[in-house]
């Protein structure tokens, strides 16, 4: 269990690990400290945690993440190279979430702005409140959308809509987010976490090896015909050899529930 004032907290509900961004004074802004804490947390959850099979990402006190901390941006950081490194931290976090072995589901309430959208879009699924407030606001402060969202937003809402949202920085709500595909499910305000955990729990019951391979395949596998083809040829035989696949077939034939071991 995390300390109450940790900037990123982790709680568990069965096989689901709930990661909460906790910087409520700044509506969970994506400060450098937050980025590093998230990186560390996801690193542990993906690579050093047998208990969890799925992850939920959410924000404390009714907000998801309000994006970059503008008070950190009012003067020039003299070193271009130092800045590159800081941006690279964001991309490392993105890679971890997007290419990791366990599904990540976002539970979005309130403010989901700038890097907040990047985080939501980097998740496999997003459940959001109808009254969530979103915008891809980077352009308004003269920045380029970051933390992988140049890639993930078009994936979620289509390239046309993503271009529109990124060039204008326009605001939209949770209902619209659902309509355009950024949210997979839109819920009553306050209900996002509960529904996200339900989704995560369901996926956590599927054979973990296959889920991990599926997620890995979706990183680049769907892009071109040949990449998709290769993915299938190379990985399908592996999944057929897993204990869990054979257990699934046996359970089906015997008309009973399967029990998956993770092998």
């Amino acid at each position, binding site marked *: 269990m995390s300390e109450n004032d940790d900037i990123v907290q982790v709680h568990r509900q069965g096989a689901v690990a709930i990661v909460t961004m906790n910087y409520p004074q700044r509506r969970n802004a994506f400060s450098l400290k937050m980025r590093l804490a998230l990186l560390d947390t996801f690193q542990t959850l993906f690579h050093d945690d047998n208990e969890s099979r799925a992850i939920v990402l959410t924000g404390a006190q009714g907000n998801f993440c309000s994006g970059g901390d503008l008070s950190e941006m009012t003067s020039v950081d003299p070193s271009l190279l130092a800045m590159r490194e800081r941006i690279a931290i964001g991309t490392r976090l993105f890679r971890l979430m997007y290419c990791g072995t366990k599904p990540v589901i976002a539970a979005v309430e309130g403010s989901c702005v700038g890097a907040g959208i990047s985080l939501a879009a980097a998740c496999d699924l997003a459940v959001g409140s109808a009254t969530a407030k979103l915008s891809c606001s980077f352009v308004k402060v003269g920045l380029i959308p970051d933390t992988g969202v140049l890639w993930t937003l078009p994936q979620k809402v289509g390239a046309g809509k993503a271009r529109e949202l990124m060039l204008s920085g326009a605001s939209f709500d949770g209902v619209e987010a659902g309509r355009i595909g950024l949210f997979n499910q839109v819920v009553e305000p306050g209900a996002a976490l509960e529904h996200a955990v339900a989704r995560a729990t369901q996926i956590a019951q599927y054979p973990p090896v296959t889920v991990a391979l599926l997620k890995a395949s979706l990183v680049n596998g769907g892009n071109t*015909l040949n990449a998709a083809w290769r993915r299938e040829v190379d990985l399908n035989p592996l999944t057929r050899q897993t204990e869990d696949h054979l257990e699934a077939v046996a359970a089906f034939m015997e008309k009973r529930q399967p029990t998956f071991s993770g092998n």
Partner: protein
Amino acid sequence: MSTTAQTPEDDIVQISRDGAVAIVTLNYPKRRNAFSLKMRQDLLQSLTQLMHHDDCRAIVLTGADGTFCAGGDISEMKTRTVLEYRERNQLPLDIFKLMVEGPKTIVAAVEGVAMGAGVSLAAASDYVVCAANARFACAFVKVGLMPDTGLFWSLGQRVGAGKARELMLTAREFNGEEAADIGFANQQVEPGQALQAALTVAHRYAQMPPLAMAHLKAALASGIDSLDQAIETEVNLQPILRRSQDHLEATKAFMEKRPAVFVGN
């Protein structure tokens, strides 16, 4: 419209004809048209023939007995070696490649269930008509398998990468109405009407100039992986079309204000 005759049990893939449109029916009703090895073999053979037959200008793909295809035949799923699986995977991929890269348009007519490989076959088609109460699911992950028969590519193409991810990871069911809503299906119809509606669309496809259609399909399959590549593709292919008889005929017909007659050259 021709009707299918009573068929012997090993007529697992039936072909019938409606003018320039060929109707391919998956016919294994006692297993809800499961995608068995024999079905895959016969389907590949039938599609290959039709793709090269001049009289056939478009193809409708459907399932017998009010259902499309319930997926892999679980009773066939015994233990095999990795190399055996690689070998067996070739067949569905060959079917998928033929459907997507081949010269003729395929219109899927989906009633009932389309799951597992059933979803893949529908997704690999150019145009999908489904009954509003059709049932789809990418159920692979539930039995520890990955989506196959090209679904990694084709699902995202139809519903977008985000929705494809959701459907593959959650393995949830969606019906014909939602299929049309999310772009998986181009058209939804009343139950029982899918084949008729598919034939109507297929006949429209059959009227389009065959050479241009073939090149368009090839381009959309693997020629547009970036803006630059897409431009290269059109620069390579368009001059071929410009010199075709059908293009010259079409421009003449346009000037003379009459309908064009395409010969496929």
